Each structure stands twice: as structure tokens, then as C-alpha cells.
């Protein structure tokens, strides 16, 4: 109360020394200052996000081969995309890739995170080891997997031959090439998901586990009744970034299979790349990017609905 009285006295004293400004003008200055403060962010988003997005949208309605000026062709690119069996195959492959890599690597990452959240010896070493694929260049990783999958000198066929299982042409056989790519994707994605889960686990109140222990709950019961629900906001976040990451898979396709054999491993992003940089069809590549964006938006909304968002 005394503090409030003092502040009121100061305000009165200041008011007595300076001429009073009209409140509207002060508000206007404040608004101007606010605009100045947000201007860099608005400029940044406008220049590097909004303009490219709008340009992509505009180019998607054109025939643009980089050499000549874009020519307006309406929705022709979209009609072609939906009647193109290769893009349909790429969309299906992307969905299959996402279906297998996202839930599988999320489940594995959560289990590893819980294990590495215990007081284990060499815990830091294990965490680093699991995170290492995330910070290693995909191209380098893909080169290692190329050797692992090599039908003649590869590690995988050598290991299988020890137990009498015949080897496969993992990346050349369309029946195996997509699963082979999925395995690499799932393996590589575990690290970042594990890290997010470990961070989230640090915030779970220990007293919940202590109370559950007093009530005689088993470890598995505690995992499903406490850990999994408490990790829900993190799970939503991991799900969204994993779906986006899976839909944007490119490097490993580029190095491992080039989309082959016979388009068996081509993905939506790879088709965008092929249209733009191999076929010189920038308009088509833009339309494919828009389709990819819409699909991603839909997946994100579905993900939000499934996990009921992170608002709770």
C-alpha cells in the first residue's frame, strides 16, 4: 500500500513538471513504435516466406521452362499431375514411407528415451550414439547404407548368408527397395525424436511415479498410465515434425536409388526435383510443391485431431 502511495505521488509530481500529452497521441506513438519493432520480422517473413510461397502458387499455373517467360496455362499442370501415374506412385510411396517411418521411429524413440532417462552407466555416451545419425550428413549415411545393401559385398547379405538366408538385391529389386529406404529413414529419424522425448521426460513430476509405486503399479502400468499421457504434448510436436520430415525426404532417395528401380522409390519431393532440375519444368514443379503443401497441411490437421492438439 505504501509503495502504491509513493508511486502515485511520483506520478503527480512528474505530471506537475511536464505538459500533459493527449492520450490518443501517446497511443499513436506506441503503435508506431510497435510497427517499427515488428517490421524486421514482417520483412523477413514477407521476403523469404510469403513472396516465394505466392510466387510458387502463381508459377504453378504457368508453363515455365527457365529459358522463356512463364506462360499462363490455368490448371493444366494440376490436371496433368492427377493423371500422371508416376506422380501418383510418388504420392503413394511418400504415404507408405511416412506410415512406416513416423510411428515406428516414434515408438522406438520413446522407448529409448525412457531407457536413457534412467540412471544408467554411460548414459551420455548412449544418448550421443543414438543422436549421431541425426547430425551426420545424410549423404554420408546413405553411402554407408549403399555398402550395407550391396548385393555382392554388402554387410546385410553377408550377415544373412551366415544363417543360410539368401541375399537380395535390396536397392535394385522393386519389392525390397522401398522397405530398404524406409529402414534407413526410420533409423535416421530416431535421434531427434529421442532427444525431444528425453527433454519432455525431464518435466514429468517424479512424485507421480512415487505415488503410483505406493499404489503398487507395475513398471509397464506406470509407462502407459503416466509416461505416455504426460508426453502427449511432446508426442504431438514429434508427430508433426516427423510427418513434415517424412514428406520432405529427398537426400537418401537422391543418393540411394535415384527414385528407381522403375520409380519404385520415387517420392513427391523427388518428383519436384526431377521436374525442376532434370526436365526444366518449373511450372509443373511448382504445382507439385503446392500439392505437397496441401497434403502436408491435411496431415498436420489430422495429426492434431488424432492427438487432440497440444493445448491441454
Amino acid at each position: 500500500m505504501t509503495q502504491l502511495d509513493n508511486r502515485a505521488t511520483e506520478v503527480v509530481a512528474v505530471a506537475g513538471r511536464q505538459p500533459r500529452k493527449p492520450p490518443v497521441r501517446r497511443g499513436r506513438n506506441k503503435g508506431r513504435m510497435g510497427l517499427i519493432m515488428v517490421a524486421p520480422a514482417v520483412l523477413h517473413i514477407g521476403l523469404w516466406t510469403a513472396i516465394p510461397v505466392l510466387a510458387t502458387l502463381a508459377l504453378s499455373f504457368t508453363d515455365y521452362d527457365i529459358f522463356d517467360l512463364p506462360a499462363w496455362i490455368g490448371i493444366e499442370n494440376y490436371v496433368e499431375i492427377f493423371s500422371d501415374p508416376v506422380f501418383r506412385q510418388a504420392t503413394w510411396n511418400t504415404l507408405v514411407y511416412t506410415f512406416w517411418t513416423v510411428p515406428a521411429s516414434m515408438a522406438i524413440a520413446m522407448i529409448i528415451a525412457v531407457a536413457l532417462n534412467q540412471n544408467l552407466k554411460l548414459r551420455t555416451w548412449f544418448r550421443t550414439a543414438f543422436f549421431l545419425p541425426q547430425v551426420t550428413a545424410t549423404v554420408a549415411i546413405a553411402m554407408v547404407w549403399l555398402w550395407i545393401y550391396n548385393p555382392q559385398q554388402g554387410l546385410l547379405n553377408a550377415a544373412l548368408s551366415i544363417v543360410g538366408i539368401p541375399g537380395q538385391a535390396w536397392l535394385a529389386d522393386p519389392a525390397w527397395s522401398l522397405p530398404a529406404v524406409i529402414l534407413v529413414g526410420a533409423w535416421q529419424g530416431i535421434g531427434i525424436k529421442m532427444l525431444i522425448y528425453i527433454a519432455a521426460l525431464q518435466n514429468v513430476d517424479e512424485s507421480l511415479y512415487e505415488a503410483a509405486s505406493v499404489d503398487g503399479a507395475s513398471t509397464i502400468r506406470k509407462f502407459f498410465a503416466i509416461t505416455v499421457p504426460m508426453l502427449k504434448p511432446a508426442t504431438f510436436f514429434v508427430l508433426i515434425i516427423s510427418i513434415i520430415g517424412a514428406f520432405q525426404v529427398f537426400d537418401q532417395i537422391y543418393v540411394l536409388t535415384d527414385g528407381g528401380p522403375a520409380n519404385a522409390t520415387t517420392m513427391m519431393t523427388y518428383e519436384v526435383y526431377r521436374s525442376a532440375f532434370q526436365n526444366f519444368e518449373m511450372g509443373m514443379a511448382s504445382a507439385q510443391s503446392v500439392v505437397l503443401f496441401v497434403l502436408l497441411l491435411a496431415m498436420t490437421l489430422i495429426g492434431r485431431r488424432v492427438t487432440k492438439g497440444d493445448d491441454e
Partner: protein
Amino acid sequence: MSIRKARTRRLARGASFGLAAVMALGLVSCASDPGDAGVSSELSGEITMLTPIYEGSAGQQLLEEELLPQFYAQYPDITVSVDYTNFARLNEKLTTGVVSGLVPDVMMMGVGWVEAFAERGVLANLTDGGLSVQSLEDTMTPQIVDAGIWDDDVYGIPIMLDARFGVARMDLLREAGYNAPPQTWDELVEMAEALTVRGTDGSLKRTGFDMLTIEPRQMFETALFSAGGDLFTEDNTAPAFNSKAGVTALTQIVDLFHTSDVEDIGFSAPNATVNPLINGRAAMAIAHNNVWTQTELANPDILPDLEPFLIPGDDPSMFVGGTIATVSASSKRPAAAQALAEFLASPGPALAANQQRGNVPALTELLDSDYAQDNRLVQFAMENLEVAKREGGPGKWLGLRGEVAPAIQEAILQNKTPKVALNDLAEVFQKKLDR
């Protein structure tokens, strides 16, 4: 007028001004013609070069430690900045260069590429710089000179050719009772079957005829040309590979995989570290002429046993590609750029580059060099230039070529019959050609 309305109007005015400023900036940058400002005819300054040859440490060493110092000795005021790539990634480098307006001054291109870039005004007309078709044809193999010509003018200077044809391991053929490579397709099938070796578990130990170590598009084109087919009609307005000859060629290839069982999918790949001919995993193959140079390094003892042959068919032919030096139309230093292109295509540098890559020199005077005389596959390519056919043709070839390999793989994997695969591919080609 309310304060809110006035503020909204001010904001709108500010936004309009900002947008106008951005658009004006864009228009100014679009309006300025990069080809006009500051173009120098002097043989000086810094120029850039994009090259898919001289790749790897050996190639880089050759260019930077041997060739460029010679160039600098002739042109001391020119400096060259080199961007290395390979043919697989050259397209994207050129695309980003064209889109960003940063086209390298000198670009090495493959056969079939010059048409696309010359037609769109990306390449400089070298005839204006003093080169003529006649002067090139007087000194170079005509079959490759043609690949640098557009609209009767010179847009590219050939440096090397590379051919694909059949190569047999005669030591393995003799073991199986054959004294010469096949002369007919039936002979090829019979020999390939006889030379194929499988283990007791059915696993392939040696293929009688390898078709997987070269890129599927080039493998098919080699077979197509030998069957008497062509990629396009004479006026380059329609695909022609789905003709009877094309379907026959692809059917024969598919049959070698699935009826004769001479090779399994995945047995080799275009990026194979060691060519199967070199380590005896293949008795015959459709191969690139540089398998000779690879053998010299890896297993020189078998060099006398490498015997080239034309893939048999109605019109036995060989596929030929090459590397051509071009100059950007937007180069600020066209004279310096053309000087570099001409230098790299001149006898000394061209011979060194061909030796490094194991290719066939474009300059006819180099065909008498020790390198060419000692290389059986280079000699064979030179002897058969009369029956060489190249890919490309229409200006849109670069946007089409990437579609070929998946279609060929569809047929080889029996997802489609050869006829359906080629007809589907032809439909895609026609749609793009008509655009």
C-alpha cells in the same frame, strides 16, 4: 475522419509504397540486360568454367596442375575459376545457373545438350568468334562436330567422344569353345547362355552378357540403334523408338534376363566400383570404351583378352556420346571464354583429357597418337564411326532423357511388356514435344 481510419490509410499507403519499391526493384533487375553492360573483348579478367570432365582428384590435378598453367602461360591476364560436377548432376548446375542469371562463362556439355541451350539463347554463337563448321570438320571427326552445331552455326567445340558397344573376355569365350565374339543376335544369346555360371544354390556367379553396368537409357539406345531403330523421326517432332525395331531390341534384352536367365536384377549397377568384365563376373557386356583404361589400372593382364564387337542386329551400330566445350551467351568476357574453350579442345590438352578419361579424341590428328594406337577399344570406336549413332535431336531432349531409364526398367522388371513400356514412354515424349 476517425483516428483508426487515418492510421489504416497511412498503413495502406506505406504498404503500397513498399510493394511498389519491391516491384520497381524487380523490374529494374529484369529490365537490365546482362549481356550488354560491361562486355569485354579483351583477353583478360576472371572467367568461370563448369565441367563434368576433369572430375575426381586425378582429373582435378590434370586440369589445375598441368593444363591451366599452360593456358595462363599463353594468356597471363586471364584467371579461371572451376566448378566441378559430373554428367549426372550437370543438369541441375546449369538450371540453377540459368535461373539465377549466373551462367558459367565456359560450360562442358554432353552430346544432345547443345541443341537445347543454343535454341534458347543460352550459348554464344562461336561462328561470330571466328570458328566455322568447315574449320572444325577439317580437323575433327565429323560425327562429333555435328553435336556442337545448331542452325548451321558452331555453338560447341568437341573435345572427346565416348562410345558404347559390345566387349567380350576372349579368355572366357575360348574356355567355352568360342573363338570370336557373336556375329548375330542368336549367336549372342547362345553364347551368353553358355557363358553364364550359377552356383549350386542358383546364385549368379558370372553373367554371360552384362547389361546392368551401363546406364539403362544408354544400354537400350545401343541395342535400339543396332536393331535399326532411331530415337526420333527425321524432323525430330515425334518419338520413333517404339517402332518395330525398338520393341524388338527391348524384347531381346528382356528375354536375356528372363528367358535365357543370363543376368539377375541387382547383379551389377551403373555405379559398380569394378566393371564385372574386369574381375571375370561377366564374359561379355555392353560397355563404355573407358573399360580399357579401368582394366589397365585394375587388371592389366587381361587387356589382350578384351575384344570389342558391335551389338548384332539388323543394322549393327554403336552408341556415341561426347564432351563439347561451349561459351555462355551472357559471358562478360566472351573472348577470354572462347580462348579457354579452344585451348581445352586443342591437341595437347585434349589428348591429356582423353587419356585421363579413356575416351576417343575428337581431333583426327590425335588418332595417330600412342595413346589411341595402344588402346584397342579407342581404335575400335574410331574404326566404326561410320556406324555411330548419337542421342538427342529435339531441343527438348534434356527434359525427355530422364524419362527413359524408368520405362526401360519397367520392361526389364516385367511390370510392363516392352511394347507397352515403349508406347507409354512415347506418349510422354509426344506430350512434352507438343507443349
